[in-house]
């Protein structure tokens, strides 16, 4: 974007076009060939943009790898940080000049702060860290970006890469916990929690048990939090008893329901519990077809009507399962795929 990029020129008003610079007289600018008069493929540029990129094409054409060419790439990046060709040329120059990579890391930090949703800038950072084999700044750096945008996909991806590549797991759960205390609905943080546990201690029995306590506490604070309920279901994937046999969870859900809470995620989980019991032929007076049907009806009509078709489907699927010996016929006549998929839904 033009407005923010202009700041990267030290002083916009004193900007001198490359074509007017004495020390650039030896380079021949190369114009963009853009394929004709037609608007679909032709491009309109501002004079400054055209000037910088004409000279960039000029140095790239002769393969000049010099300090001034490096500075020129910074001007080009300031105008368009998403141009991956420029970034690649910059890296070629850095290599050739054996430039100070610690300085480059500071440079890319500034650029990312301005363009934090851009793929190329993050990729550049990663390459520099790999070249340096120094990951000591990555956690603090990504943390700084996440202060402004706690769900920034690129920042999380970079952070996960650094943690996994350089084994930086220590303290990460505490960090995730602090993020969840700031915003209990931060889905990226919940995902990170899963990432850390999965890649370290693993979801062994006592970890699952501790995590169940953790997430139930969070759900109790905000029962309408999709992310926490998803995490709970993810945890129960690792529970040998399945969805419906963890007493902490079932007690929690029943109490919440009895207290009058009608979070669609609470009702949905109870429906899934009934579904699991029916599939396993282990219905009881709490988890059975009658209750599943009533909950689906409540969800479809009052609690979550925008998804009424889903709830109607669940109701039908579960009824058919209950009435069908093999438990396979999900939606009459839809074939084996349908049945397999219905099976998959209660694999959890």
């Amino acid at each position: 974007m033009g407005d923010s990029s202009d700041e990267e020129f030290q002083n916009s008003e004193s900007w001198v076009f490359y074509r007017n610079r004495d020390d650039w007289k030896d380079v021949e600018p190369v114009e963009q060939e853009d394929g004709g008069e037609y608007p679909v493929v032709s491009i309109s540029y501002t004079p400054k943009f055209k000037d910088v990129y004409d000279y960039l094409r000029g140095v790239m054409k002769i393969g000049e790898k010099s300090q001034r060419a490096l500075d020129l790439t910074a001007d080009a990046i300031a105008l368009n940080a998403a141009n991956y060709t420029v970034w690649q040329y910059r890296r070629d120059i850095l290599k050739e000049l054996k430039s100070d990579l610690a300085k480059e890391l500071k440079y890319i930090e500034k650029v990312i702060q301005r363009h934090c949703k851009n793929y190329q800038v993050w990729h550049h950072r990663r390459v520099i860290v790999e070249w340096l084999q120094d990951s000591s700044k990555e956690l603090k750096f990504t943390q700084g970006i996440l202060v402004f945008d706690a769900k920034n996909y690129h920042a999380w991806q970079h952070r996960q890469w650094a943690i996994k590549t350089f084994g930086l797991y220590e303290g990460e759960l505490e960090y995730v916990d602090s993020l969840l205390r700031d915003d209990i609905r931060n889905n990226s943080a919940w995902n990170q929690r899963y990432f850390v546990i999965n890649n370290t201690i693993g979801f062994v029995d006592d970890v699952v048990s501790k995590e169940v306590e953790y997430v139930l506490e969070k759900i109790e604070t905000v029962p309408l939090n999709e992310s926490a309920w998803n995490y709970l279901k993810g945890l129960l994937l690792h529970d040998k008893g399945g969805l419906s046999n963890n007493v902490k969870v079932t007690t929690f859900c029943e109490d919440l329901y009895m207290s009058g809470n009608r979070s669609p995620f609470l009702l949905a989980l109870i429906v899934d519990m009934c579904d699991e019991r029916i599939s396993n032929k282990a219905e009881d007076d709490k988890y059975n077809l009658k209750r599943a049907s009533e909950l689906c009806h409540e969800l479809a009509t009052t609690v979550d009507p925008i998804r009424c078709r889903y709830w109607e489907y669940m109701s039908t699927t579960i009824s058919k399962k209950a009435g069908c010996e093999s438990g396979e016929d999900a939606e009459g006549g839809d074939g084996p795929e349908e049945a397999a998929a219905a099976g998959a839904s209660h694999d959890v």
Partner: protein
Amino acid sequence: MATSMVNEVKGDDSVPKELLLEKHVSFLREYGQNEDNFEYGITDYLRMSGVYWGLTALDLMGKLKELPENEIVEFVQKCQDPESGGISGCINHDPHLLHTVSAIQVLCIYDRLDAINVEGVIKYVKSLQKDDGSFTGDKWGEVDTRFSFCAVLTLSLLKRMDAIDVDKAVEFVESCMNFDGGFGSRPLSESHAGLIYCCVGFLSITQRLDIIKRDTLAWWLCERQLPSGGLNGRPEKLPDVCYSWWVLSSLSMLGRLHWIDFAALEKFIVSCQDSETGGFSDRPGDITDPYHTLFGLAALSLMGNGALKRVNPTYCMPQEVIDKLELKPQILN
């Protein structure tokens, strides 16, 4: 559910309520002609994808002829790198898989694959597969499930799926499946509707939708619908027209399209048009662009809008083009 996001969008009485097709045709035809359109000027590195967005949107409206076929085909030709075989976003730029797929989509719409060196493209895609089955976007680059999708999309359009190790490629995509049934960019990356579309599309092309936890994922996807009717891409994020496409197309491949409230979504998409300039934006009142215009129209087409051609949910191209190529991506009933 997004009860924390009160007033998620500022829809008011002034937003459009009808589909403004003629406006969109002129918007796409003239996009970039305006000298003041700096946004377009700086995006030369993705010109090729821009051509695909504009062209497909026009084709869905039955207005393919509004753009000059020969000039576009010539542009694509000039963007092919003779050495690697890959195609770049703009003439003299470096090739990239994202632009290679757009270029092939454009040439398939025109039925002009003869214009480029097809073997070169196949060689290029093949060169980007890594030992673990994943793909990078260019020879420098990063691994991402987006690139797995681009690779098979390109090769299937060229009928050359045999050029890569499909089983390995499936294995990698499967390793990116999360506990919520969704997919992220890499193993254990957060589920994201755009990446879910890429992974479901990938599995549709490779005929492996069986590995998906169908109803778990489809529920997660229909949970993206917010009280405004619009769809977001992750829990607790704002709705955006482009997610209408990514969520709907995925649900369509999974045979669960009807779990979305069409009337509410249609109302949201239509409200994201600009009644003066034409085009769609991410949310009501924002600046419109070809990207959101294509995905807004494609989503309306999936919901059966009679004024538009049918779109194929896997390829995001007119169904008639896919039929002509005799491609049968897997779609669950």
